[in-house]
């Protein structure tokens, strides 16, 4: 059995550790690239959302390297993602690849089924081994997300533009060749230290932007045209509403127990959206309100073309923009790889935020506060 899985930002590092710890043979799909997109669009339905196309690209690139089993997570929200595994299996079957799909659906109360799937994957019934591997994978997930946090902080402050990504790129290259929890964890710690040592330029005026929207597009740098690096180098510190680590804890560990970390977000979203409508629409709205209240300078929403939950959120966000007097920009991503128009809008948005802040500071000076 050679297991592969789709890409989504840094998640591959944790999944790889999980599989390594279970002694499963893994095929790591190559980084998402134009080729991935090309393959994905060729074999996917034209009107499906972008993440599915990229997934298909990832699978086929891995199949070429000998993968015969696909591990994917299911969805807890009623959006098209819930049908991904079924549709993807059919697409691959039509192409003549008869692969095994292992669906790591969050238990939703049914832990027995969940563990039987994990057992199938792990090829063992030793619960200690499984639980320890799951715990190690989760820890790595938190560590890489923490690494990202440092990058968000350092990018707008680095004295030499590009230094943060020099270390991150190096990390992403090296981590592919490293096996097991211990080694990966050490590499993360090393990268973390390099990032923390980056010299800062204290004169830089940093503005803060919250990124909200559909989880895949805000996390995978290939599809959002590396928005975090672009913004970072324009002097923007950002925070993302959704993180894989947060999602996992919420759905795998807390939700089945009837707990949630998202209570605050649900509360913030309530005046605008009372119920869950699927996908992450409610989170998009809740986090936008949260960012506005926390004094962020602006909000950027990113979602894949035709994403229904985010379209609903998009129509509500202008009201939040007015209610909280916070500028908002929307990006819809699809198969585009040319980023000139995209960069122009980001630049103009950052300009707008800077001028607004200058004005506010001048007003404060004038009114004597």
């Amino acid at each position, binding site marked *: 059995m050679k297991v592969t899985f789709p890409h989504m930002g840094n998640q591959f590092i944790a999944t790889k550790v999980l599989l390594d710890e279970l002694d499963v043979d893994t095929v790591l799909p190559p980084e998402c690239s134009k080729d991935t997109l090309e393959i994905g669009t060729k074999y996917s339905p034209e009107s499906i959302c972008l993440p599915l196309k990229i997934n298909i690209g990832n699978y086929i690139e891995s199949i070429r390297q000998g993968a015969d089993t696909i591990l994917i997570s299911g969805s807890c929200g009623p959006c098209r993602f819930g049908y991904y595994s079924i549709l993807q299996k059919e697409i691959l079957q039509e192409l003549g690849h008869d692969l095994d799909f292992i669906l790591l659906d969050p238990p939703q109360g049914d832990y027995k089924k969940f563990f039987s799937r994990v057992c199938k994957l792990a090829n063992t019934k030793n619960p200690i081994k499984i639980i320890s591997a799951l715990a190690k994978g989760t820890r790595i997930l938190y560590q890489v997300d923490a690494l990202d946090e440092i990058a968000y902080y350092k990018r707008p402050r680095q004295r030499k533009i590009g230094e943060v990504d020099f270390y991150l790129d190096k990390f992403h290259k090296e981590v592919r060749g490293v096996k097991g929890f211990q080694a990966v964890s050490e590499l993360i710690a090393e990268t973390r230290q390099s990032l923390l040592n980056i010299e800062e330029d204290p004169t830089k005026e940093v503005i803060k932007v919250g990124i909200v929207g559909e989880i895949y597009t805000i996390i995978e740098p290939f599809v959002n045209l590396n928005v975090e690096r672009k913004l970072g180098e324009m002097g923007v510190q950002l925070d993302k509403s959704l993180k894989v680590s947060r999602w996992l804890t919420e759905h795998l560990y807390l939700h089945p127990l009837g707990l949630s970390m998202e209570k605050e977000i649900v509360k913030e979203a309530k005046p605008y959206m009372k119920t869950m409508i699927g996908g992450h629409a409610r989170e998009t709205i809740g986090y936008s309100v949260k960012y506005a209240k926390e004094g962020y300078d602006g909000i950027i929403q990113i979602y894949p073309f035709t994403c229904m939950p985010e379209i609903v959120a998009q129509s509500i966000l202008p009201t939040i923009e007015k209610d909280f007097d916070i500028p908002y920009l929307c990006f819809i991503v699809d198969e585009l790889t040319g980023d000139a128009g995209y960069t*122009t809008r980001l630049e103009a948005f950052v*300009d707008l935020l800077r001028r607004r802040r200058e004005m506010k500071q001048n007003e404060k000076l004038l009114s004597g506060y």
Partner: protein
Amino acid sequence: MKSCYLGIDVGSVSTNVVLMDENKQILGKVYTKTQGRPIDAVKRGLKEIQTQIKEDIKVKGVGTTGSGRHLAAMMVGADVIKNEITAHGIAALNFVDGVRTIFEIGGQDSKIILLKNGIISDFAMNTVCAAGTGSFLDRQASRLDIPIQEFGDKALNSQNPVRIAGRCAVFAESDMIHKQQLGHNQEDIIKGLCDALVRNFLNNLGKGKELVGPFVFQGGVAANVGIKRSFEEALGCEVLVPPHHDVMGAIGCCLLAQEHAIKHRVTAFKGFDIVQSGYQVKGFECEDCSNACEVIEILKDNQLTARWGDKCGKWSNDIKTDQEKLA
């Protein structure tokens, strides 16, 4: 010797060069077609500006904008490189005091810019839908065999405009052909097209935004009086077209360059002599990873001066030398 500022806007359809003096008066302006060769267009623009100016001048600052802003900046040595949205906003503010809404329709894109208290407060830019841009009008004019310059006047003569679907360039075109075959006269069809374009623009870009006057309409399409009239009818309010509406991006650059010059007092301008230099563009596909980026190299008199187009920044990175140290 007169001090002045140079603004260059390299757009997809036209390249505009403007020379402005200290008092914000336009000394010379050039509107030339880019025709897919931005380097030649910038050279041609500079050459023409030079012939227009008779007096002795000293360029104290240069700004570039438009989708070719980085290329132009590298050629002339710019002090300010700004996106089109900011440049257009600044230019409009300078011509109409207290402007609140700017409609900008160019060849390949259209934008709406909202301002509040003299700063940009919101904007939207359409880069995908062709139905809201100048190229669409250009194409329909040539289909109807009317010079684009007469297009607007014809629309004004319409008595009974026909309704044309404006949501999509493909729908609009087939709708237009059907109406024409039914026997509607040309003026009415043209007016219908203008209305459709404006409807599309306001629905697409103005969606959910509060549009408040004064309104300014600029960009190449602002020369079209038919579109201006359609905007006024749709908004029920006067729409102002600045005298230099076709080169507002370049004017914005001049203003930004002036601001920069006041702060920094130095310019990176390489002088008008650069029109004599030979520029060459070479491209190659990087084969180091599966992204296969198309990297562009710019050579000035056979000397490599700039590179871009790579995703990872390996070729274009500013800190290339530092990177070697870091590694």
